[in-house]
């Protein structure tokens, strides 16, 4: 297709992009202006923008504490995801008895919603003594099946002769994963990091159930708490949303190239 014929496609893509970005712009605009969403006529440009709704959010709730909790829980989830999923993905590239059953089990489990397993997950976490702790908050998200398949697809692209050569050189299976496979699977690592971070960062239901003290609450719970005791929250609520969204967006922007590569590889080879 020549360049002249591409403009309708580009036009359509720009229109779709604008349609998808408008809600984000609206949140950002309202966070600095406090304009009521139902105001008519709507103003596209914020009137008298100011940053004080962000200041309000910072002081009305213990934002720094919630932020620290979210960072700690997400960090545990990211590290565990990269480590555990890489090992699982590597195992699934090897031949072993019952591999097809394991794969079938994984695919079946993807269809079970988390809400259906939340009671056993809670009981297990309680038996482990991890309720109201960072590890307990991160536990159900320490490994995700989608991310295992992303690693599996990435590892399958590595020639088996390379793995054999590493084994002949005396590397253990762990050594092969960390010193041979992982450096060749940067896109899969980035995908794992971003997905596990965003899922953990945005998680609401599990922290709501597992946390008992206010000091262990994460940002999504803070948002709910904020909504519960503020009446006029238009500007501050949107400012809170921006503050919650910003780390995830920043992480995505930093690693978007590897993220898209990893997802594309996972989509075609899982």
């Amino acid at each position: 297709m020549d360049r002249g014929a591409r403009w309708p496609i580009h036009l359509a893509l720009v229109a779709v992009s604008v349609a998808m970005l408008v809600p984000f712009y609206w949140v950002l605009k309202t966070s600095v202006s406090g304009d009521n969403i139902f105001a008519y006529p709507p103003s596209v440009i914020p009137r008298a923008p100011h940053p004080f709704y962000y200041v309000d959010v910072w002081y009305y709730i213990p934002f720094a504490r919630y932020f620290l909790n979210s960072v700690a829980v997400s960090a545990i989830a990211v590290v565990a995801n990269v480590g555990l999923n890489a090992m699982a993905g590597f195992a699934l590239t090897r031949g072993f008895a019952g591999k097809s059953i394991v794969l079938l089990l994984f695919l079946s489990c993807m269809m079970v919603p988390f809400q259906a397993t939340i009671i056993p997950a809670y009981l297990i976490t309680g038996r482990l003594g991890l309720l109201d702790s960072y590890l307990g908050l991160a536990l159900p998200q320490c490994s995700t099946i989608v991310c295992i398949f992303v690693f599996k697809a990435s590892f399958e692209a590595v020639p088996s002769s390379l793995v054999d050569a590493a084994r002949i050189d005396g590397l253990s299976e762990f050594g092969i994963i960390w010193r041979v496979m992982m450096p060749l699977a940067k896109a899969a690592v980035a995908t794992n990091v971003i997905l596990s971070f965003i899922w953990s960062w945005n998680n609401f239901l599990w922290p709501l159930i597992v946390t008992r003290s206010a000091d262990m609450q994460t940002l999504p719970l803070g948002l709910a708490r904020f909504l519960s005791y503020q009446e006029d929250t238009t500007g501050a609520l949107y400012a809170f949303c921006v503050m919650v969204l910003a780390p995830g967006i920043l992480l995505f922007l930093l690693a978007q190239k590897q993220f898209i590569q990893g997802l594309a590889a996972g989509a075609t080879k899982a």
Partner: protein
Amino acid sequence: MTGQEDFVPRARWRAWLLNRFVLVPAALALIAALWNGYVALHDHGLVTGRVVDAAGRPVAGATVVLWVLEFTTYVEKSRATTGPDGVFTIHDNPSHNIQLAAEKPGVGRSARIPVRLYFRAEDLALREPLVLEGGG
């Protein structure tokens, strides 16, 4: 040979440090540190300003009241009295969302003005004076 051995670790360190995954968080951390330093130097809770009458003359002995937002309502926090030049200083503002008003019997009272600050107890010098009106 020695030069090559020196070069390789240095290049590796450079690759680790000079990439966006390190530079962006480092820049954010630097901005946060600078902001916290600025806050630490300017959070004494001082509020200063002037009180004038309708003709613009300084008013001595006027009472200035500071309200701070607590939960959903403004409550009175402290009071100060203006000096001979109409200047007042409040030393104990703990809030980032305050209101100020002045009053002197016989001269009048000012409108209650809302003031938003960038952080709690930020030192503030009012640009516009509080104007007393309606005292007859």
